[in-house]
């Protein structure tokens, strides 16, 4: 058994890396990236594929065949009603109560609408869903989501697809420290493995991304790079980072150096 599993809603996963399934050049390249990422959970969007008549089946079956747990999302939904309807449809289609809840507040940067998000999370939780909300890094929003029953939070690093990394470290650190028992997955905005490692070093429990891998020249190689960085960051978190200091402190003794070189 892996010594450090990720536990979400009572299920455990070896990998702390969740990968999206959009934007790849082809399904086979997507599959190669999924394999290289060693991920256990993949997200998929169905808003635009006319889920009612299952016209996306050919593609979805291929994702299912990856063996990963499917996490349907409500990407593209702008209202509570839309998100709830789509979540119900995806529960039926994929036979899972898990949903990555997105309620888009702004069309251009796809920023979450915190008010709609809390309302939709409340409704879905009451209907028995296991909600993984894509939220901003605001503590109060996080608290409200937990209050309505979310057992996992997925705060952004920065807006979707921007690759800006962790834009507001202060907020993210606050969220982490104030809600220490809630698993948190940084979702969106990461462009480089170093950014993922940093988030893991800060004590976040996992990373979800899509664009940075899908848009790389070699998606499988980038997937592997992120997987390694996430592992490294997690190990560093457990090992304990040293405190930063203002002055240099030599790691070799200075005895033996002439006094004018000391100080």
């Amino acid at each position: 058994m892996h010594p450090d599993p990720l536990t979400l809603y009572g299920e455990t996963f070896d990998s702390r890396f969740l990968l999206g399934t959009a934007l790849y050049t082809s399904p086979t390249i997507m599959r190669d990236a999924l394999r290289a990422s060693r991920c256990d959970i993949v997200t998929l969007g169905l808003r635009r594929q006319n889920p009612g008549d299952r016209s996306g089946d050919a593609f979805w079956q291929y994702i299912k065949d990856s063996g990963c747990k499917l996490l349907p999302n409500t990407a593209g939904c702008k209202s509570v009603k839309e998100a709830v309807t789509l979540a119900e449809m995806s529960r039926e289609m994929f036979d899972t109560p898990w949903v990555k809840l997105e309620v888009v507040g702004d069309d251009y940067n796809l920023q979450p609408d915190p008010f709609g998000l809390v309302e939709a999370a409340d409704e879905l939780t009451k209907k028995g869903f296991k909600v993984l909300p894509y939220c901003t890094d605001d503590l109060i929003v996080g608290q409200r989501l937990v209050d309505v029953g979310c057992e996992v939070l997925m705060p952004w690093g920065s807006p979707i697809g921007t690759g800006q990394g962790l834009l507001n470290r202060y907020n993210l650190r606050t969220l982490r420290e104030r809600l220490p028992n809630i698993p948190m997955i940084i979702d969106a905005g990461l462009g480089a493995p170093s950014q993922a490692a940093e988030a893991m070093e800060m004590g976040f429990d996992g990373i979800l991304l899509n664009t940075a891998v899908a848009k790389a020249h070699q998606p499988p190689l980038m997937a592997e790079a992120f997987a390694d960085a996430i592992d490294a960051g997690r190990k560093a978190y457990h090992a304990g980072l040293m405190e930063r200091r203002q002055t240099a402190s030599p790691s070799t003794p200075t005895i033996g150096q002439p006094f004018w070189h000391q100080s």
Partner: protein
Amino acid sequence: MGNHTESIGIAGAGLLGRLLAWQLLLRGHRVSLFDAGTREGIDSAAWTAAGMVAPLSEAVVSERPIYDMGLFALTQWPLWINQLESERTLWHQQGSLVVSHPQDEAELAQFHRELQYIIGSADGYQWLDRPALQNLEPDLSDRFQRGLLLETEGFLNNRELLNQLLATIERLGGECHFECPVDVEPNTLYNAERRYRFDRVIDCRGVGAKPQQPAVRGVRGEVLHVRTRELALHRPVRLMHPRYQLYIVPKPDHRFVIGATQIESEDRSPMSLQSSLELSSALYTLSPAFAEARIVEQSVNLRPTYLDNNPHIQTSDGLIRVNGLFRHGYLLAPAVVKQVLADVEGAEGTPFAPFLQRPLPEMSSAPEHPFRHSP
């Protein structure tokens, strides 16, 4: 004319079916062409497509061999068009432009980076500043600060081309059966009414082959046709979009095609409002003069696609299956058709044979049950 001529049945009268029928007739073979749809071919992906031959633009969203086959297309299409002796202009080659909305400038930079990565050199494209853009396309909105000119790209008047191909096939004595769906087995095309025997059959039914070829899937694409006399474009223009590239292609009679969405779905229902908004606002972004254009057509079709999004030719005794040209029909047809002709005649293949004749990608790789960890 080759030494040995055959009777050949072709299932599917889209672009590949028509090109193959024409070329095989020219080589002295006896050809019968079958299609489930009408003579006009309005059900075929080739009819819905905008007819671009854009190896550089497409290189960015595909693999290197697609680019190489696309370069071949740029030399082959003018030869074929000459051979057709059409009275109307079917082929245009004045390059294409790539621009982005100021907010999507990063998408344009990414496009350029991909181009450099895949092509290696800076051959065939250059940055243009605003005056240069205005000089090339005066009717383009002047808000675009810069753009890429892809110098060699071309486009076809594709619907007229499909007409001309059919007329030529019939003139050369090809036998055509429209509204006559057929299934395929070696040496035979058949339906509930009849069986047709041939020395060889070629299956180019695209998504229509899916019942017999489950590895083929459809990828939905939506296009809008508008008409306006208020502006003119001399070449296709691509507009970067965070999810897919949109292109506007000028067509005869003051028509413009804008496409295409790319959605992993086999849904053929009419265009969604969201797609319609995206396509329309892209047009408006390119030039506000499109505001009063009239929407004359909204089309939806499925691109025939294998899991690797690449074309495949499968040759066996008495049967050649060719499919999976995805979003690259006009770009890849010359290379694919040349290779099929070589297969038919047992001639030396094209340089693309190793790529085109690879085995199909495997369909599934894991157990049926999608959940690795159960509660």
